[in-house]
């Protein structure tokens, strides 16, 4: 299994990355997933159990994984460039803040899920990680958990693979707390982002999905409760850029 190689790699070069790190990709691909107990606050509680959202569309849970996969297949080529264009480079600051909060040191066993364009990686499913229990000191997921079909399962998996004392850190788009910023952010999201997607990447629909999926994600408080439901303690969150993104943190104690 590639994991020991990743651990070796990570314990060697733990400090000073400025980019998202490798880890598992392609969440939610399994279509024949046996139904486990749902978390106390599943996102789809308002809808029938087999349906969920894909942006503002309603789709079956089986479909969602495949549709998300297609989105990321489509955006992969220009992923970093589009992130820079859409956030004017600010996404790098957000990710730096996440790393600063983490304060990794040589020897830290870190797992970064939905790693994007990172270094060495392991292919897997965030809802069923190919790692044993109690393996990692830190689990991070940056702009990934929003796309997982069953967020509660991903959180449970995060809890499982962390060592006791381990830390869960999630950087994700969240709800804006300032009405003026919120208005500007909405205009920018819905009017500009899909246009950027079309002009730069020739792909309107993936970026439309992106801004819609942000609106569908639970608020800071709701997500905090979901993390607590997965067994994490001392769960806190910190807003960045008026709540456009938030870093949630929890510990497995």
């Amino acid at each position: 299994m590639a994991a020991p190689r990743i651990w070796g790699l990570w314990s060697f070069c733990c400090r000073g990355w400025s980019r998202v790190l490798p880890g598992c990709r392609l969440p939610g691909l399994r279509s024949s997933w046996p139904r486990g107990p749902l978390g106390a606050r599943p996102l789809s509680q308002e809808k029938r159990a087999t349906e969920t959202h894909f942006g503002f569309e309603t789709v079956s849970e089986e479909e969602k994984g495949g549709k998300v996969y297609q989105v990321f297949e489509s955006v992969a080529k220009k992923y970093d460039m589009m992130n820079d264009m859409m956030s004017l480079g600010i996404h790098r600051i957000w990710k730096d803040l996440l790393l600063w909060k983490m304060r990794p040191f040589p020897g830290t066993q870190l797992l970064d899920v939905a790693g994007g364009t990172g270094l060495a990686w392991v292919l897997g499913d965030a809802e069923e990680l190919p790692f044993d229990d109690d393996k990692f000191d830190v689990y991070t997921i940056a702009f990934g958990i929003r796309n997982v079909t069953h967020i509660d399962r991903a959180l449970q998996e995060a809890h499982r693979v962390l060592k006791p004392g381990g830390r869960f850190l999630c950087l994700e788009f969240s709800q804006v707390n300032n009405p003026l910023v919120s208005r500007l952010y909405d205009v920018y999201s819905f009017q500009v982002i899909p246009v950027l997607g079309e002009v730069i990447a020739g792909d309107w629909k993936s970026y439309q999905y992106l801004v819609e999926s942000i609106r569908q994600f639970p608020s800071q408080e709701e997500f905090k409760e979901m993390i607590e439901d997965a067994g994490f303690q001392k769960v806190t969150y910190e807003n960045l850029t008026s709540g456009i993104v938030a870093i949630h943190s929890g510990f497995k104690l």
Partner: protein
Amino acid sequence: MRTLLRGVLRPLRAFRSRPWPAADVPLRATSHGTGLLYPEHIPTTPLQKALLAAGSAGMALYDPYRHDMVAVLGETTGCRTLKVLRDQMRRDPEGAQILQERPRISLSTLDLGKLRSLPEGSLGREYLRFLDVNRVSPDTRAPTRFVDSEELAYVMQRYREVHDMLHTLLGMPTNILGEIVVKWFEAVQTGLPMCILGALFGPIQLSARNLQVLVSKLIPWAVQNARRAPCVLNLYYERRWEQPLKALRQELSITEPPMHVQGPA
């Protein structure tokens, strides 16, 4: 330049009088059955159309291989002109039939075997020869997405699919010189802002010699023929495959080009 800008801006101004949803209302809320006018439709606000027009124009100049950007530019700036074209088609008996029956020129609708068996010099045979020699396919035309009317979206699609017919009629290859000549013809015939912009900005990349030939011979010829010919969108090409190309050119008052333009580089 100012008149050009006005030509581009005029269609945009027309939008302001219609009631549009507030800027932050997510448009996709309408796109699940209720707001889509045709399968490929992406509804857009006036602001989005303006941003798309500007962005696609810039990107098309920056990266000439982004043909999709030229298509987007056409769709976001052509609304008023498409209406004029549609009305013109309605008034013509053959054009009205096209609007009614909505024929499409694509590999799935063309009977290539039949076209190949047609006599030399016929429209169908020459069109096929054009596709083979220039190594193009009718299926590379992007579907219309940003036009907010199903009928006008068809008119735009028809214009795109007829483009290759024009190459055949005018005897122009698909290299940059040939494309510019066809764009001038289309600009005069259709008045689409995207054609006008393409006709004016396309020559920027040409060598001095080509530019000289273009300006002194080819453009005047194209413009003259475009003014004389009836609207090329009113031709039901699919019913004219057997017609000799020479006869069709005569019918449209299209003369031979003043010089032979070399095939694709």
